[in-house]
């Protein structure tokens, strides 16, 4: 069994605390993605799991072992680095076999496992090249190959795709996903890219400033963000967040316009409460140009400042409640500048956050 448990894990550099007591349990064979903006402590957390940073306080268990005092080599993990960290003075074959050779495995075993990894990742043709002779995507595959040959208890990925160009990134993303289904192992994956997190993860851990903001499946995190940070970080383009006030069962914005209080949230707010109204661009569409919506909704006349054509859809920059807001037009037609459109806001998918704490009013 190779679950990973983090118990109140703290990291301090001198007096500066950068990770503030993280608790997390990662199940056997689970693919967990740590996501957050740069400086949120996600990489530091990963490096503490790997043993590359010492743990200032708290405990980390891998399997049954408390690993706080174990050096990386005794943790039975493998890691893919952002810049791959391939050994430039070794061929692909030597790179792949290095860990096994260090572990004093017999040559036959090394050769067999290296060939196995090479065929999984399609590296068989490249075995005698050096890293300098490989393309970015090939290096990436060698780095992953080096991780899988050792059959570790867990894979750690530290922003493995951020050095690739956009097209290759999408391709490698699917390869990582396929690899995980082939080689069932626990994976901890760090990225700042929420799309990677959404597409790869069994569970997403959203971090900010050394705290965990939310843990959940991609759908949970997307559909039920616990606070405004998660709401704005997950999903692209980000959710519109408009300050508002609850008055007489309505959500009233700063400019006195408003929408009805979403039914499913009405029991969680009280009259006069200051809130933040959140709605994703996908749920704010001109009539006749949205996904058919049978639930509770509101319509508002809004003026479009700018329309951005993306082909299958058009992004509409407008103002809602005096704040800049973004809507989407599916099955688009030409929109003129300053044209006023009737938008339908899908209230079933709207969110309310407490203005003071930023937390979702719905206690999930």
């Amino acid at each position, binding site marked *: 069994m190779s679950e990973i448990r983090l118990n109140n894990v703290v990291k301090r550099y001198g007096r500066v605390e950068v990770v503030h007591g993280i608790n997390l349990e990662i199940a056997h064979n689970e693919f967990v993605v740590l996501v957050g903006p740069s400086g949120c402590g996600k990489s530091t957390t990963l490096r503490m799991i790997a043993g590359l940073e010492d743990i200032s306080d708290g405990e980390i268990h891998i399997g049954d072992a*408390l690993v*706080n005092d174990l050096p990386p080599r005794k943790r039975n993990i493998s890691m893919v680095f952002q810049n791959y960290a391939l050994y430039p003075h070794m061929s692909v074959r030597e790179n792949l076999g290095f860990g096994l050779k260090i572990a004093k495995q017999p040559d036959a075993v090394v050769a067999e496992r290296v060939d196995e990894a090479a065929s999984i990742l399609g590296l068989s043709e490249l075995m005698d090249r050096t890293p300098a002779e490989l393309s970015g995507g090939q290096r990436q595959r060698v780095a992953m190959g080096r991780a899988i040959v050792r059959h570790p208890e867990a894979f750690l990925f530290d922003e493995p795709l951020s050095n690739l160009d956009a097209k290759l990134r999408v391709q490698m993303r699917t390869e990582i996903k396929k690899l995980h289904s082939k080689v069932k192992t626990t994976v901890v994956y760090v990225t700042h890219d929420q799309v990677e997190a959404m597409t790869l993860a069994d569970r997403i851990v959203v971090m900010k400033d050394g705290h965990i903001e939310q843990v959940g499946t991609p759908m949970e995190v997307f559909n039920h963000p616990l606070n405004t940070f998660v709401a704005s970080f997950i999903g692209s383009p980000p959710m519109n967040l408009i300050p508002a006030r609850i008055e007489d069962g309505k959500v009233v914005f700063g400019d006195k316009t408003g929408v009805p209080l979403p039914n499913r949230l009405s029991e969680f707010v009280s009259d006069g409460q200051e809130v933040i109204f959140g709605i994703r661009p996908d749920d704010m569409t001109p009539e006749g140009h949205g996904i058919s919506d049978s639930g509770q909704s509101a319509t508002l006349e809004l003026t479009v400042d700018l329309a951005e054509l993306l082909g299958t859809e058009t992004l509409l920059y407008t103002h809602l409640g005096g704040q800049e807001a973004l809507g989407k037009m599916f099955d688009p037609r030409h929109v003129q500048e300053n044209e006023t459109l009737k938008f339908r806001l899908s209230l079933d998918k709207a969110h309310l956050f407490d203005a003071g704490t930023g937390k979702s009013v719905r206690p999930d």
Partner: protein
Amino acid sequence: MARTPRSSYKTRLALTPYLLLAPAFLVLIFVIALPLVFSLYTSFTGYRLVRPDSLWNWVGLRNYERIFTDWDFWVAFGRTILFLAIALNLEFIFGLGIALLINRITWGQRTLRTIMMFPMMFSPILVGYQFKFIFNDNIGVLNNALQSLGISDAATPWLVDRNLAMFSIIFAEVWMSTSVFAILLLAGLFAMPRDPIEAAKVDGCSPLQVFRHITLPFLMPFAFIAMTIRSLDVARAYDIVDVMTGGGPAGRTELLWTLIARVGYDNSRMGQANAMAYVSIILSVAFTYYFFTKLVAARRYMGGAA
């Protein structure tokens, strides 16, 4: 329960760099720090090599009083400062010129750069000998050439005349050390991004303005590295002077360093020599420290762009 092993593991991690540095420190303490403490002590005694018991003869500040009221010391001191100022400035100017020149050349650049490194790797004693030979008034190649070409019939006393001797020594010093500047400034020119220069040209700067406002500021950190490296061993000039003129004739090329050797070994007045040595150490340290802080400041200003 796991407290003890954990803290020892952490302590070990925190101690590692100090353990790695320990051998270096041991050697430097034994060979440099302790002797310097000892020489600081002797600079307050009337120690003479020929009378070992004079090591315990505490004389307070008398050695310092004596050297600070000694005209010969001040002349040597002033000459040393002047020598350094002239040599370092010439080295910088020539080095910059050479770097710009070689940067223009497209063919054989590497070979030229390699050749340029040779003087820097020569033993200073060799450089001194080489120029002692060349500047020799009787059989030196310089006078021979001047005579053969009919420019001058006289045997010019390059190493005897007060001003010419100083010139010859500075020439040797500049010959030896200019390449430190040339090579580092050339490395700076190689590392220089093209964009700012092109942007400045588009913005209407003349070549001179581009050099003044873009190239030169970019090169300054490299110049300060060269200055720092140079200031580490300015006292190499001792070797050159010792072989070329021995500080003579009649003390006309005496630098602080040759004076120390004369007072300490020839006159065996160790106490006084150590007092002078301290002045020379402070001078060197001040030079290095000054250029090092300049380097750090320039580096910060560049934001690591180099």
